[in-house]
């Protein structure tokens, strides 16, 4: 099918990129992949789970910081640090999620925002371990990862594998139940589904994959920064999901590509790049609420056959 062909083409392009593109664009592509994985992991709870995950960046930061601290302060080998990072992020997801899932939507988001801010403050203040506002730089990695092609290969491979895993989760019975809960929590409850357990599991999974994105960031940049845990980044990831379309699987990836690309290009020509992002966001909310991929999908469906989905998917759930 055409979906398969597209997927194959995308994979081939990813594999060919380092040979074809100038080094800076290889780096940029790797950054898009890392950010895209981060946004896709958020979408598991946001788009598929319907939860107000307002501070997803915290898990990204925890994954990255765990790896960085493990390597530089504890002398772990890189593979161990890259394994423990996502696990630590998943554990943080379990703890924060445990407190949040008991609450209604807005309280869920606000409590997560405040709990996440503590993690951020710890990273910002605990100088001997986290390097405070400096972060940690020049993290030593095995020589093969210190080259751009090496780092790119790891990032591309891990992102593709993680996206495949997330796709499997979304299509699994667990993923379908999660979407059923999103659409009608009361009915799911009546049908004997443990709503909170499903939501908590989704948060832990999403946190784990955000942690994977975090350690990949370390592999790519060999640095970590406290701003990775700041709430502004978390809102930016939300914007990526909205931009790409949060009812599609590929939407967040597309949103991440647009935001990272715009930031790099607009940052070159204007210091008012946040103004550009803000205006774009407002326009999007009014004129393209289903996001880029959501819009394309709708047109595709309308073209082929009448769809069962409501035309304004972004509007129906309040």
């Amino acid at each position, binding site marked *: 099918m055409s979906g398969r062909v597209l997927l194959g083409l995308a994979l081939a392009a990813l594999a060919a990129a380092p040979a074809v593109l100038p080094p800076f664009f290889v780096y940029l592509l790797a950054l898009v992949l890392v950010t895209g994985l981060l946004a896709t992991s958020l979408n598991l709870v*946001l788009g598929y789970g319907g939860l*107000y995950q307002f501070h997803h960046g915290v898990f990204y930061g925890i994954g990255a910081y765990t790896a960085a601290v493990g390597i530089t302060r504890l002398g772990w080998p890189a593979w161990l640090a890259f394994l423990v990072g996502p696990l630590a992020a998943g554990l943080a997801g379990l703890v924060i999620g445990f*407190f949040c899932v*008991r*609450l209604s*939507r*807005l*309280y869920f*988001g*606000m*409590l997560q*925002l*405040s*709990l996440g*801010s*503590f993690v951020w*403050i710890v990273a910002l*203040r605990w100088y001997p371990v986290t390097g405070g506002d400096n972060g940690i730089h020049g993290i030593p990695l095995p020589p093969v990862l210190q080259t751009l092609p090496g780092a790119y290969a790891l990032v591309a491979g891990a992102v593709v594998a993680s996206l495949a895993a997330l796709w499997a989760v979304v299509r699994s019975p667990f993923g379908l139940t999660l979407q059923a809960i999103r659409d009608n929590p009361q009915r799911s409850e009546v049908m004997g589904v443990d709503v909170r357990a499903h939501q908590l599991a989704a948060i832990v999974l999403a946190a784990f994959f955000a942690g994977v994105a975090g350690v990949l960031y370390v592999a790519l940049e060999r640095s970590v920064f406290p701003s990775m845990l700041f*709430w502004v980044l978390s*809102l930016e990831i*939300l*914007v990526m999901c*909205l931009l790409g379309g949060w009812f599609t699987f590929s939407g967040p990836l597309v949103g991440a590509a647009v935001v990272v690309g715009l930031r790099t290009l607009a940052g070159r020509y204007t210091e*008012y790049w*946040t*103004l550009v*992002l*803000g*205006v774009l*966001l*407002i326009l999007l*909310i*009014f004129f393209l*609420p289903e996001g880029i991929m959501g819009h394309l999908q709708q047109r595709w469906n309308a073209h082929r056959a009448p769809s069962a989905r409501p035309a304004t998917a*972004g*509007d*129906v*759930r*309040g």
Partner: protein
Amino acid sequence: MDAAAVLGQLVVGLSRAMILFIVSAGLTLILGVLRVPNVFHGSLYMLGAFVAWTVAEAVGPHPAGLWLALAAAPLVTAAVGLVLERLLLSRLYYREHLMLILFTFGVMLVLNDLVKLLWGPTYRSLVPPPSLQGAVTLLGVALPKFNLVLLVAGPLVGVGLWLFTHRTRAGRIARAAATDRDMVAVLGVDVSRVFGMAFALGCFLAGLGGALVAPTTSITLGMDHSLLIDSFLIVIVGGLGNLWGALAGSLLFGITQSVGLLVWPQFAVAFPYAVTAAVLLVRPTGLLRSAW
């Protein structure tokens, strides 16, 4: 540690708590009535401070300048809020709730860059009139005279808000809408207009906070950041949408910090956050009953 020292620090902390209260009362009002955590609340606070500076500069050294600035700045931010609400935000009320939140984030990005465009990156100082310069010694503590203005302004705003929510029709409707908005709509009240008014009032308070803080600190880009986080935490600790919760949270914040300085100065900065965390772990929905 003598009692006078503690009392002195208490007074100092109280004046800080008043600013926090004024700003977070506005935030919690919008949150209670519209159920929107207004992310650009901090930007309006900053805008209020810059407008106050501009007005005070335009009037010159005359003492009336400061009072004019204190009056003008909140009116400007209320107008900005009202226009944004009527033109844009009100069209989103029937939409996915997350859209409202992201909309306010978009406005925050735009407003902050607009402030930079209009006032530039340098910081500004608003010098209070001579009668309010310098400090008074109170309980052995040097307290800036202007902080006395804050100590009066806080309770005034509190009383004003109480009168509004309990003695006026619009206020009662707003309060009812915060508890059960569907019921209010069924009663045939134009909820949308009440929403607009509550939003403008919330924005008014953000600007008032900014104007009141202007003479005590440097007016800079980025002054919204730490305040926004603090007032969000205060609102959560107090109970979303609860005005008196905002007061309780502000007092908790301002006083733990200033008195914490006497106990453990090196880590006083973390005190308010530690207290917030403790409260939330015991009572995840805040100290006082949330409005819904």
